[in-house]
């Protein structure tokens, strides 16, 4: 600009001369400015291209790729869950899901789409926002025929081009909550799960195992989704197919469960609250596992509705809880065989030891009653187990002291997680002086030992722990890790090198429970020597202060654990009947399962043909053949 100015002055001096003004040379400096400006403009433009094309071309070539390639996920089916004989427990069913392509979503379309598919509009909008990093969002699974028809007639370019149908696999679980807790269920990965390092390879919107085997073996069961890539133009029209990446289906999971036994256990539990666990004590294989009340995992497949979820989560009876591994209840008298072996092994009692039961006894200034008010009279170990005399075991406990009790109980697995391959197992409690000091910073009072001796007080166990504890005792004092999926070798957790005659005395006491008119006589089977132990546990009095709503909530929990045969037991079954009032109410459940096991074994021995018929039995119809096979007894009140 300075140039213009100086030039101005010079021209002004000679402005009188018209010819000079005609001289174009006088504008040369201004032309130079124009030339510089031109250079600047071109530098400006070329630098812009440099930035887009040379500095970071990847950003834009990826954007162009996203523009032109429409990739549709090919969903991989999850592996099936099978029983020990390869029969299908959990299957997949083909269905259609609807997804929205993020690039094409128009907010004004969403109300209409939500309306036609009966989705909640605000849920839909939230979901689209939440799945911020996904190019495609599955908004509805298991479309009905009408919905599919609606989508197909509206997914053209003119109406709702963002909609796309894809083939999906719906998880198909057994009906009526059969084996629901063991199998678990699948669902969409949650925000908190996404944040945890365990799910580092997972993405928003992924369907993962949420509970049970589905969760524990998610890596095995889940497949790898494939992708179909199609070249599209700006109208979304498909021009040509690109390379397709096939889906890799998940691997099938073969469990140790026996569908026949599971069916019997389910039927036997009926609508009682509680749990049944059947194990093979020789290796820890779980043959059946039932928890009641149950839930229908089919409601969870994919995306559960909020009302269904709330109903389950807020149910006071906690149907989602797997009582077999999560219940923490006092074992009651089922604890007595452990007391017995502890007493014998430490030598505080022997087979000659007698105590007098007059219906109760006083220790440390407190009166402890026996469950039989008139008392058992003079009683020795064998009868004390068979008749479940409390006074006998009060004395044993008093002689042992809490820490020796804890030593033997922990050997049997009380107070420790069994390590079963299911998520969220609880460990229960086995009190000891150290435990009390750690938990309450208090000394153990000898009086507290007396209630522990009959499985009350602070002792809590899960049905699985109890089955494992007494099964291992019956197996000669060897405890294997319970598992649902067969590993290479059974894992021996602990071994008590008990003297065989001591073990023999305890087991014969448990034989007496069933076979000599004891508390578990309803478990008697004609051809098999069944041993067992009943248990009645008072519901902790604290429940009173919590204000239990129903009177039945205060009734005793009852247990029965039985194993057979007496020598070399092949199966141990623990049954928990919550608020079952009297211990004999739990016995028939175990009896049914034991009977089914030995009936099946006999049948298989007899005829291979029959076995094949049995293996064709599908879970979906388990009720009828199971009933026919087993002639289930009615739950008559067994005589004491």
């Amino acid at each position, binding site marked *: 600009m300075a140039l213009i100015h100086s030039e101005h002055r010079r021209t002004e001096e000679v402005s009188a001369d018209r010819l000079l003004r005609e001289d174009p040379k006088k504008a040369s400096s201004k032309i130079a400015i124009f030339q510089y400006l031109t250079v600047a403009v071109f530098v400006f433009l070329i630098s812009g291209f440099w930035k887009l094309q040379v500095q970071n071309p990847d950003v834009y070539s990826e954007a*162009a790729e996203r523009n032109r390639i429409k990739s549709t996920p090919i969903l991989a089916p999850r592996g099936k869950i099978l029983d020990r004989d390869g029969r299908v427990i959990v299957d997949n069913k083909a269905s259609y899901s609807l997804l929205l392509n993020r690039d094409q979503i128009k907010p004004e379309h969403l109300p209409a789409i939500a309306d036609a598919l009966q989705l909640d509009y605000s849920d839909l909008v939230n979901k689209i926002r939440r799945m911020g990093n996904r190019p495609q969002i599955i908004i509805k699974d298991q479309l009905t025929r009408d919905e599919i028809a609606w989508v197909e007639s509206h997914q053209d370019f003119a109406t709702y081009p963002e909609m796309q149908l894809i083939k999906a696999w719906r998880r198909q679980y057994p009906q009526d909550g059969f084996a629901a807790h063991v199998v678990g269920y699948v669902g969409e990965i949650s925000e908190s799960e996404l944040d945890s390092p365990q799910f580092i390879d997972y993405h928003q919107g992924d369907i993962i195992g949420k509970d049970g085997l589905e969760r524990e073996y998610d890596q095995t069961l889940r497949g790898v989704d494939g992708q179909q890539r199609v070249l599209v133009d700006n109208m979304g029209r498909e021009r040509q197919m690109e390379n397709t990446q096939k889906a890799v289906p998940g691997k099938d999971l073969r469990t140790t469960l026996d569908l026949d036994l599971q069916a019997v256990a389910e039927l036997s539990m009926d609508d009682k609250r509680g749990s049944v666990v059947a194990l093979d004590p020789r290796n820890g294989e779980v043959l059946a596992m039932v928890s009641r009340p149950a839930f229908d995992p089919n409601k969870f497949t994919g995306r559960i509705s909020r009302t269904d979820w709330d109903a389950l989560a807020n149910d006071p009876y906690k149907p989602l809880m797997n009582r077999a591994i999560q219940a923490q209840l006092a074992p009651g008298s089922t604890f007595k065989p452990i007391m017995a072996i502890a007493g014998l092994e430490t030598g505080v009692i022997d087979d000659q030891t007698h105590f007098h039961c007059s219906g109760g006894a006083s220790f440390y200034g407190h009166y402890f009653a026996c469950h039989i008010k008139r008392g058992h009279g003079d009683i020795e170990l064998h009868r004390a187990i068979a008749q479940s005399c409390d006074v006998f075991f009060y004395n044993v406990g008093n002689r042992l002291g809490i820490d020796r009790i804890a030593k033997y109980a922990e050997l049997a697995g009380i107070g420790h997680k069994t390590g079963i391959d299911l998520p969220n197992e609880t460990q229960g409690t086995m009190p000891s002086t150290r435990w009390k000091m750690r938990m309450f910073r208090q000394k153990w009072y000898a009086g507290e030992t007396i209630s522990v001796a009959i499985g009350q007080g602070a002792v809590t166990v899960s049905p699985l722990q109890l089955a494992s504890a007494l099964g291992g005792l019956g197996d000669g004092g060897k405890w294997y890790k319970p598992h649902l999926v067969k590993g290479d070798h059974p894992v021996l957790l602990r071994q008590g090198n008990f003297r065989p005659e001591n073990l023999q005395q305890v087991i014969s006491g448990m034989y007496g429970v069933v076979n000599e008119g004891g508390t578990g006589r309803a478990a008697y089977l004609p051809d098999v020597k069944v041993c067992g132990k009943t248990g009645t546990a008072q519901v902790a009095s604290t429940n009173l202060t919590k204000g239990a709503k129903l009177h039945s909530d205060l009734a005793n929990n009852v247990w029965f654990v039985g194993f057979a045969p007496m020598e070399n037991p092949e199966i141990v079954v623990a049954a928990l009947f919550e608020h079952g009032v009297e211990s004999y109410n739990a016995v028939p459940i175990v009896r049914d399962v034991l009977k089914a096991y030995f009936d099946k074994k006999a049948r298989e021995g007899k005829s291979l043909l029959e076995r094949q018929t049995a293996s064709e039995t599908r879970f979906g119809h388990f009720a009828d053949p199971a009933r026919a096979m087993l002639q289930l007894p009615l739950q008559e009140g067994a005589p004491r």
Partner: protein
Amino acid sequence: MAVYRPLRDLDWPLLIITLALCTLGVLQIYSATAGTKWEDAWWKQVLFVATGLSMMWVASMLDYHALLGRVFYLYIGAIALLVTTALVGNKVFGSTRWIKVAGFTLQTSEFVKIVLILLVAKYLTDLKSETLDWKDLAKLGAYVGIPMLLVMKEPDLGTSLTYIPILVCGILMAGLRWKYLVVISAILVISLPIGYHFLKPYQKDRLVSFVNPDRDPKGTGFQVIQSRIAVGNGGMWGRGARESSQTHLGFLPVPHTDFIFSSFAEEHGFVGIVIALVLYFLLIMQVVQNAQTATDRAGLYVCMGVAALLLFHVLVNVGMVIGRMPVTGIPLPLMSSGGSNTWSIFLMLGLVNSVRLRRFVN
């Protein structure tokens, strides 16, 4: 006027550069429109270039002094043409820019540019005083302002804006006092926000999406985003002719007219656009060189008007393609498909040649 001028005196470098750019344009139109409804645009463009060349020759034979002498009638004619367009023009996409003449649809506002270049040159040549005073500025502003308003009313903001560089360049070449420059700049700065309120909603949208194209990626920002993706997708060496996905799958808006350079950049990459921009630079410099060698001020003003107009076109169109200028919808000279623009550019280059052929006073 009808004195024969030897062909060898024509500006051959200018012609060669022009034809090189036209060739790039035709090839790109051919590539970008293959398989679309504009498939025949490339040979139409060949015809426009061919007829443009003869127009250029005719214009170069005319003595620009004679044209300047009749500029008043030309100006009246231009205004009449614009008014006629407003009255009987074809309405396309909500805008009345074209009239049908002998089977051709002409965009009248393109030809008005030539008249304005001549008008500004004539007015500045005839100035009695050495510098422009307020009265001169007001008069010149009014002369250019009237057709500008008419074109703006069509509505065609982009083309009306191209009249401004003609005016500004002329004024600056003629000489302007510092004081005036400062005052005019101040007025512009103040009036811009006010002017914003008079823009049409779609024009406001374009400005907003220029500042922030991601705000509404499916709406007005779409063209800018897709254009930038296309350019970036080209990379250093380009995707190759007819291999460009942005162009051929239709993501790029109008890849043979306003966004032809975007399509060109995708197919030929950074190397390609540098070659094309260098050609444009040489074209403008060649026009400027003709201004420098012009025999009189009138010739200088004519050439500089053409140079300023070309520079403005290249800046705004190519700047738009890379998202550095708002979307205004003005074509890229010589490359974009379209008759009116091509012809008006060739006529202007004819004027430049006319100045060149008469550089030796005889």
